[in-house]
């Protein structure tokens, strides 16, 4: 209950402190706006020995969230109430109970923005600082502290912050301090660059964490600093940007308490014009796990984020069977993307044109030579910047999108994967998975309000659990209703007893800002990833209800 009292007092103080001047209380209140959203997920679990779904003692588990944001002129404040009674299976077990773990107040005045309480922030591409919420993963590393943003000159934006990171319903031990400067050169030097076609942005960041050294085994650095520099140049349809980050000795459970410095480099370049886009990305990450508690693991208390250079697949088999998890301890990755639209009337475009997207990504370990200095300097290893080690992941995929008629359209995909289970899932000794995936997704509009969509997917591999297939049929009665059935079938499993069907049926209702979904079925065990950040999901079976609403 104490959170509710805190909220009420907090809100009143904010309103009276910042908004009341000569105007009446009523005037002030009329200017205020409240926005928010609500989400509730609940599942009734049943034991299902065929898929390894264990009995759940509570039978029903639920997650609930309510965001409330109040704005009044230059003042804003907000809270998020969270409820885990108890958390859905697969969520970190630290989420248990109810409470307000996100509340903030913010005020803007004369180019200075001030936030106290919780906030999310990202410096550059996130190589040394990114706090964010990804609810599907149970990921929330929000900072609780103070943040200042100041536009000191035209085009010069400074950010300074300090805070502690959220850890479920508590805070991590460490304190995070950070500073970022971003300069939009075309604004800062507007006279000199006003006719320039090039748009140039440069930036630099410093982030330091403090955690007391209470180890009897090692002398640990209590303050660990990291720095980064970045630049982005856009010239017409062409863009190139990059960021380099460096982190001083940060022994932690992630790197087996070695004292090697860390570094990361991210480069991206793109060219786009109507009907054509080309993107190439590269990164190298070496010992860049950066947490505000050196003893933590999983996704807890990460200060930084290393962007994934692999495609975020959405189709069932590609997204759930072999998704890639970014390896913060060491990774060299490349990705290329080509998007092209065949014009109507062209040989391949036909009467209605056709889109093609070709994507190739690869992630390898860095090439390391062990130093065997565990009992001396504990530098761990050395690595040649330009050498590449073992393959972690490869994904070549092509997607064709084609409208056949005014009523029918289809998306057709092929993907070829190489997946290192040993590293990505932490399953030593398991062979790499080589898989081919074929997907057809066809939608047919029966009428203005009625449409039918079907998916057929197959994944072919000789490793792991063998071949899989998925079929899905979805009927939509616009704009409110949909109903779908799906079956994922592990038909190629060498063990015939494990050739399991993962069936699922769902029905949903949408009405403006409200959406209600009810489904029944099975979910296979595996890993679930968003942006290269993953969590392990156990097998489950039962009835699932989801309600979302925004206002």
């Amino acid at each position: 209950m104490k959170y509710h009292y805190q909220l009420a007092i907090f809100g009143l103080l904010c309103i009276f402190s910042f908004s009341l001047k000569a105007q009446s209380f009523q005037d002030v209140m009329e200017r205020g706006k409240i926005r928010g959203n609500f989400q509730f997920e609940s599942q009734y679990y049943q034991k299902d020995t065929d898929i390894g779904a264990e009995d759940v003692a509570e039978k029903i588990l639920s997650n609930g969230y309510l965001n409330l944001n109040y704005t009044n002129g230059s003042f804003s404040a907000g809270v998020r109430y969270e409820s885990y009674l108890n958390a859905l299976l697969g969520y970190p077990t630290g989420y248990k109970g109810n409470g307000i773990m996100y509340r903030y107040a913010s005020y803007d005045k004369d180019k200075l923005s001030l936030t106290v309480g919780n906030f999310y922030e990202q410096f550059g591409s996130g190589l040394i600082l990114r706090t964010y919420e990804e609810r599907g993963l149970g990921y929330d590393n929000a900072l609780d502290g103070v943040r200042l943003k100041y536009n000191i000159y035209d085009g010069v934006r400074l950010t300074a912050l300090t805070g502690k990171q959220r850890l479920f319903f508590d805070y991590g031990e460490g304190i995070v301090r950070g500073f970022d400067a971003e300069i939009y050169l075309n604004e800062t030097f507007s006279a000199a660059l006003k006719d320039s076609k090039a748009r140039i942005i440069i930036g630099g960041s410093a982030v330091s964490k403090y955690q007391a050294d209470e180890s009897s085994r090692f002398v640990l650095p209590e303050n660990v600093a990291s720095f980064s520099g970045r630049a982005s140049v856009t010239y017409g349809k062409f863009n190139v940007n990059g960021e380099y980050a460096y982190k001083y000795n940060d022994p932690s459970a992630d790197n087996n308490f070695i004292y090697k410095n860390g570094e990361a480099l991210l480069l991206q370049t793109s060219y786009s014009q109507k009907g054509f886009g080309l993107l190439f990305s590269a990164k190298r990450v070496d010992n860049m796990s950066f947490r505000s508690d050196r003893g933590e693991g999983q996704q807890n208390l990460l200060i930084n984020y290393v962007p994934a250079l692999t495609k975020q697949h959405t189709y069932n088999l590609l997204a759930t069977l072999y998704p890639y998890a970014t390896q913060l301890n060491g990774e060299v990755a490349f990705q290329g993307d080509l998007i092209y639209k065949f014009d109507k009337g062209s040989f391949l475009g036909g009467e209605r044109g056709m889109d093609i997207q070709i994507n190739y990504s690869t992630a390898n370990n860095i090439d390391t030579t062990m130093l065997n200095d565990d009992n001396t300097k504990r530098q761990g290893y050395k690595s040649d910047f330009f050498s590449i080690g073992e393959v972690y992941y490869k994904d070549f995929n092509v997607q064709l999108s084609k409208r056949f008629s005014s009523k029918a359209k289809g998306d057709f995909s092929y993907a070829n994967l190489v997946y290192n289970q040993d590293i990505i899932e932490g399953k030593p000794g398991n062979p790499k998975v080589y898989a081919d995936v074929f997907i057809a997704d066809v939608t047919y509009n029966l009428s203005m309000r009625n449409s039918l969509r079907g998916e057929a997917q197959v994944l072919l591999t000789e490793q792991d659990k063998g071949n899989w297939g998925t079929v899905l049929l979805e009927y939509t009665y616009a704009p409110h209703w949909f109903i779908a059935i799906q079956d994922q079938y592990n038909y190629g499993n060498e063990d015939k007893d494990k050739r399991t069907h993962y069936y699922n049926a769902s029905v949903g209702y949408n009405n403006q800002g409200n959406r209600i979904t009810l489904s029944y079925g099975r979910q296979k065990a595996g890993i679930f990833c968003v942006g290269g950040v993953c969590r392990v999901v156990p097998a489950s079976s039962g009835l699932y209800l989801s309600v979302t609403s925004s206002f």
Partner: protein
Amino acid sequence: MKKQLILPLLFIVALSACDKVDDPFPEKKDISFSLDETTEYIVDADLNINDTTALKKLFTDHQWDTIAAPDNSTKRFIVVEEFTGHKCLNCPRGTWEIVRLDNIHQEQLIPVAIHAGTFAEPRPPKYSHDHRVGGDGGAGDTYLNTFGVTAYPSAMVSRTRQAELLSDAQWDQRINSIKNDIPKVKIDLKNYIVKDTNSSAANILRIQIDIEWLDNLTKEHQLQVFLTEDNIIDWQDSAGVDLEFYNHRHMLRKVVNGNFGLELEAAEIGKKASYQYITTVDNKWKAKDMESVVFIFEKSPSYEIIQGNAAHLR
């Protein structure tokens, strides 16, 4: 202060918020025992001797050879700490000067060659051995930085005149200027080492130090214990020529009791104190060419060594 300065200042603060750790391991604390009223026994933590019973057993389980250092009750023994390195092309010149002076002053001169700094870094394939105590950032580098060594060869003669670093041409004169000083303290030194060289305890060394103050002194003092090894044959750059079989002399091998030693009680004439350091000798070192070097020096900022002594191990 202008408000524009506030955030850049925060940036500077963030830049400085970093601890660089060169040695990941906490310094092991030697364990101290009192078996009798006169001697404090200080045992290397690596020996895992945790009680007096185990300590007594160590003494009684083995036969011990003993070698005593010369009497220095009437002479001030002089410690010459020379900074050197195997890639220092002028350093052989320093070694030859030390050898010459050692021949003149005999037991009164105690040379210690400290390999430290850039010239002492391993450089394979020839100069692959690391002769620095504690390696990079170890005791040798600590002394190098503390005393501000900028040129090689250079040496401190009993750290006189606030640990003044002298070139090889100056050592002779400085030694002569202090060799007739009346000693302020006497150091009796005796090494005990297991007689049986095939024993598993053959690498255990007991260094018995008995001091007696010969004057009343107002300054505070530290007791320092080193191990040195003589006649190490290895590569040396000599005036640009790589010498494979160069004889490295009096090399500092181990700092037994911390980089700046043990704090002593106030110096009062006639007052005595006894310590026995029990430590280990690396099996790769030649015990017959080794010495324990003990000296007493004034605390910072003087660092002056007022008395020293040395004794062979075997």
